[in-house]
């Protein structure tokens, strides 16, 4: 039985060129028509969530995830389309709504719990439990403004999870806090899930989405791109964006330097481009950890060049040299090259766990004379699929 039904939901925001925010402006502006841009945040989104199901919503920033969540929560109304929610719904869009810095921890627990829909009696019975869970028993009567932000988040979280939701909407609440806190969040999420609470979960953390969500909805520029099995939808998300620039991430730390500046060599062989191919043979800038990947190095040689050596070196984002190899080391003999062509480096299983990686490519002679050398000119992202920590997967098993 479905507990959330979303049918043909559209959301259009009108962004006026000149915003009239006063009565005066509204009156003087009566004669002139208002110019405005429209921004379609959601277009024709249709899905339903079954009772007890956990649905993930993923997509780039600005793809409409949060807008959709707010519409589900009743905070915003859709421009057209209908949303039917069949059960009591608790949104966790922000922790600590209504927190007042001038009040004590206990007073804030009471207010926040009331906002989250707990009754007076429930709250009275739970205050001690909440403080204990947050590890703040000693600060019962301290004012909130004297709490560190971490303590405030813990207090808010401990209070929020006392609610007994039938449907839970979860935005990127989990993005805050340290590792331990995130782990606590995950445990709670899991508990709710096991209790049969219907959950709608918006996250950038594809690892968590993969672990928890039964089904996933992928949004792109407000459009419903895919809805279905989580693994398939995540693949679609990661690999579905063919022919976009390889460097794509939520917040690019630093663009890879342009090839010209960092390249050197005598130019008899020119490396004209490097592309990363995913398991479907399509170009991509990001990869699931442990998926196959092919690095295709395109070159052009104006004249016949005998016995060239092609090499690659892999760096972490911070510039640590992780790995390097070349055709000579792998005993691959290239008799000669001439004109345009490419050489592939095939990786069966990407052993990196997560992060951005930089690639240096080079072509040189056997005795090291450079034809072309492009230092850290290319990059790709690896998206975590598991929960192991670190950069690399170490093939291992525990015995006990």
């Amino acid at each position, binding site marked *: 039985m479905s507990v959330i039904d979303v049918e043909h939901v559209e959301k259009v925001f009108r962004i006026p060129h000149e915003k009239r925010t006063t009565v005066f402006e509204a009156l003087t502006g009566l004669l002139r028509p208002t110019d405005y841009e429209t921004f379609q945040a959601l277009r024709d989104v249709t899905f339903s969530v079954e009772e007890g199901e956990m649905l993930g919503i993923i997509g780039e920033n600005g793809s409409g995830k949060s807008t959709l969540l707010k519409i589900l929560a009743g905070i915003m109304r859709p421009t057209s389309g209908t949303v039917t929610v069949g059960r009591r719904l608790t*949104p966790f869009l922000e922790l600590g709504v209504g927190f007042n810095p001038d009040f004590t921890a206990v007073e804030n627990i009471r207010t926040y719990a009331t906002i989250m829909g707990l009754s007076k009696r429930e709250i009275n019975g739970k205050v001690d439990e909440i403080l204990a869970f947050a590890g703040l028993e000693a600060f019962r009567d301290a004012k909130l403004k004297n709490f560190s932000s971490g303590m405030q988040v813990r207090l808010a979280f401990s209070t929020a999870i006392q609610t007994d939701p039938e449907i839970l909407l979860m935005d990127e609440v989990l993005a805050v806090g340290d590792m331990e806190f995130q782990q606590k969040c995950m445990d709670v999420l899991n508990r709710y899930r096991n209790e049969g609470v219907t959950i709608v979960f918006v996250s950038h953390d594809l690892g968590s989405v993969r672990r928890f969500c039964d089904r996933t909805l992928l949004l792109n520029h407000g459009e419903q791109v895919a809805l279905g099995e989580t693994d398939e939808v995540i693949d679609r998300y990661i690999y579905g964006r063919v022919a976009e620039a390889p460097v794509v991430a939520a917040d690019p730390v630093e663009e890879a330097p342009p090839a010209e500046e960092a390249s050197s060599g005598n130019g008899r062989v020119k490396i004209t481009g490097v592309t990363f191919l995913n398991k479907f043979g399509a170009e991509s800038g990001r990869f699931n950890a442990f998926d196959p990947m092919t690095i295709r190095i395109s070159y052009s040689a104006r004249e016949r060049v005998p016995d060239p050596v092609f090499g690659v070196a892999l760096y972490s984002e911070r510039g640590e040299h992780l790995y390097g190899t070349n055709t000579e080391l792998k005993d691959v003999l290239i008799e000669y090259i001439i004109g345009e062509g490419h050489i592939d480096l095939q990786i069966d299983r990407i052993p990196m766990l997560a992060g951005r990686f930089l690639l240096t490519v080079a072509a040189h002679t056997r005795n090291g004379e450079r034809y072309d050398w492009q230092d850290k000119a290319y990059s790709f992202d690896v998206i975590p699929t598991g929960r192991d920590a670190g950069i690399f997967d170490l093939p291992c098993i525990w015995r006990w």
Partner: protein
Amino acid sequence: MWWMMFLDRMKTLYGYRNLIWTLAWGDFKQRYKNSILGYFWSLLEPLLMLVVLYVVFSNLMRIQVEYYQLFLLLGIILWNFLSRATSMGLNAILGKPSMVQKIYFPREILVLSSCITALLMSIFESLVFIAFMGAFQVPLSANLIYVPLILVFLFVMSLGLSLALAGLNVFYRDVQFIWAVILQAGFFATPILYPVTIFPETLRGIFLLNPMAHIIMTARDAIIYSTPAAAGSLLYAGIMSVVALLIGYVIFAHYEPRFAEEM
């Protein structure tokens, strides 16, 4: 039917009574929490106003009214309630962005609870008035039974105005300044400092269009002068307060769906 919807809405709000009270009480506490003298100051404010106005109007203007101090103080307290409730209600939505944008409950709760905060503050203020009543040994009478009704009218009217203002203020940010001017003018246009009888009959009619005039007059009659409240005044005040609430609610409901986007 609209009144069925209205009743339904009331039922929903009743389900949120705990939240309404928590928000109102929290706000009330916070207003006095920052200084130990907080409560004292809040009593001092109407007293100072009383002293100034009393000196000016009883001596310079030579207004001759029995129990003029009480007459004045009651008017000030009732007017202060309207003024405070609407000024606070005006900001009830705009002043709490996270409650509007991050969670959902019927938004009129924010306005309602701010009016209740204003009520708590006014109840506190009226302690001064009660003390004055005792000091002047004003005889009490059975006419006090009108008082709760008059106060309900006052509250309902203030709530209606607050709802309209809160909704409008989200979209037109100068509403608060316009309203401040209206309140200022209203203070002098309402018979707070003077009895309406200082005007000639012809002019009086205009002043009596103001429902606040009737509320203050009937309250004075019932509390200070042991006179039953005039039925006509009560009826007028009652009708106007219900009209204010309905119109206010309609305006609020018109703007409410776009609150989260506009803030």
